[in-house]
C-alpha cells in the first residue's frame, strides 16, 4: 500500500511517502501530491525514506510535480533516498534535473537559501 502524509510549516511542505511507487500506485501517488500542493506553495520536499521501489511511472509523477511547482514559482526536492532508489535516479539522469538531498534538514536548508 502506498501512503502519503503531508506536514507543513511556513516555508515548506513535506510529503512523507511510504511503500512502492509502481504503475499500480503511480496514479494514487499523483492524486495524493496534487491534494497536498496548494497554489501558493513554493517548496515541496518528498521524503523517500520509506519508499521501497519507484518505477518509471512513478518517475513521471515526480517530473509532473516538478513542473507544477515550477509553474507556480516553486521548487521540488527529494530527500532520504535508499541506495537502490538513488541508483535509479542516477542511471535515469533524473538527478541532473531534480534536487536530491541526504536528509530532510539539508533539503529544507537548500530551499530556504
Amino acid at each position, binding site marked *: 500500500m502506498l501512503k502519503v502524509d503531508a506536514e507543513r510549516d511556513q516555508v515548506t511542505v513535506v510529503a512523507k511517502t511510504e511503500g512502492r511507487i509502481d504503475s499500480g500506485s503511480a496514479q494514487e501517488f499523483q492524486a495524493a501530491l496534487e491534494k497536498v500542493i496548494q497554489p501558493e506553495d513554493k517548496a515541496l520536499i518528498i521524503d523517500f525514506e520509506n519508499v*521501497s*521501489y519507484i518505477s*518509471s511511472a512513478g*518517475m*513521471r509523477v515526480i*517530473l509532473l510535480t516538478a513542473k507544477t511547482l515550477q509553474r507556480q514559482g516553486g521548487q521540488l526536492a527529494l530527500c532520504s533516498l535508499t541506495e537502490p532508489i538513488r541508483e535509479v535516479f542516477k*542511471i*535515469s*539522469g*533524473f538527478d541532473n534535473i531534480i534536487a536530491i538531498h541526504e536528509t530532510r534538514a539539508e533539503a529544507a536548508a537548500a530551499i530556504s537559501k
Partner: protein
Amino acid sequence: MTTDVSSENTEQTEELQDDQQGYKILVVDDEPDLEPLVRQRMRREIRSGRYSFVFAHNGVEALKELEDDDDIDMVLSDINMPQMDGLTLLQEIPKAKPNVRSVIISAYGDMQNIRTAMNRGAFDFITKPVDFDDLRVTIDRTLRHIQELRDALSVRDRLVAIQNELDVAKNMQQSILPTVFPTGAGYSVYGTMRPARNIGGDFFDLMRLQFDRIGLVVADVSDKGVAAGLFMMSSRTLLKGAAVGKGHPGEVLTEVNSLLVEDNETGMFVTVLYSVFDPRSGRLTYASGGENPPVLVRADGSSEELPLTQGIVLGVAPEYEYMENSVDLAPGDSVIFVTDGVTEAMNEAQEPMGIQRVRDHFAQSPPKDPESTALAVIDVIKEFAGTAAQHDDITCLVLRRDD
C-alpha cells in the same frame, strides 16, 4: 516456367495472418519508372497473392483511388509530387480512410520532411534509392500493425474497457519489433522482448546504416496505455530517422530528445541506449539516455559493465547534449543490452536481481551465438524470479562480433 529459387529475400517473407487473402497497397509516385520496378521486384509476392498493387501519380489521384476502392490497406507515397504532394496527402488520408496506414518514401536523411510526415500520422518511412528488401520488411511490419489494430479495435467495439486500450498499446508495441536479424556481415544479433501483463513500454530496433554499420536501440517508455504506445511509436520513428541522418549516437539522442521535448505536456519520457557497431573496425559507439549500462562479455566468459555516458532520459530536458563512449570488440566478444525489466526483475522476497547473476552465468558458460545468449539471460531471470510475477517488460538484445 521455371521456379524462381533465387534467394534474394526468403527469410523476410514471414507469414502474415493465415486468414488473410492478401493486402492491397496503393503506391503514389510521379516517377513513371517506379511502377514497373515494383511489379518486377515484388513479382513473387504479387504472384502468390500476398500483395497486390495499385498506382497513382499524385495526391489527388491517390485520394480518388482511395475513395473508389475500399480494399486498399496501406499507402506508400513519395513526398514531392505535382498537384498534391505526399505530406498534404498524409493529412487527407485519415479523413477519407481512418484505418489506412501510410509509409513515406523520403530522400536519404531528410529529417525535416520525415518529421513532418510522422507528425501527420505516417506509420514509417523508407529512403531513396528504394532498397526492396527493406521495403518488404517495412510493408510487412505495417500490414501486421494494421491487422493487429483491426483485431484490437474489433474487440474494443464489443468491450469498451481500459484493458482493451492496453491491448491496443501492446499490439502497437509488438508490431514495431524487428523479426529479422541480420547475420554474416561480420557480426550477428538477436533480440527478444517479453511483455509484462499490464504495463511496460519496452522496444528494441535495428537499423542498417551506411558503410555496413548497424544501429541498435534498446528503449523503455514510461507508463502504459494508448498515449504511451503512441509516444513509443514516435520515439522509435524519430530514432530511426535520426540514426539514418546522423552518424554519432550522441548526436542522434540529442536530436531525438529535442524533438520529443517539444509539446511534451504529458511528462512522458523514454530511456534509450543507442549504439552503432562498425564491423570493419570492430568498434561499438554508444550513448545512453537513462538506460542501464551494456554488459560486454568476452569469448572466455569474463565480463564488464560498460561505463554509462551520464545522459538523462529523453523527452524531459530541453537542449540537453548527449555524450558517447566507444569500445573495441574483439572477435568473439558479445555485448548484452538490457532494460530495467532485467535488472529489476523481482524474486519472491521482492528483491531486485541486478546484473551480477547474468555475468556469473556467462563466466560459467561463455556466450555462443546471440540467440542462445539472449535466451540464457531470460532463463537466468526465470530462475531468480521463481514464482514471483513479472512486473515490467524484459528486453534483451545481444550483438556478437564474429570469430
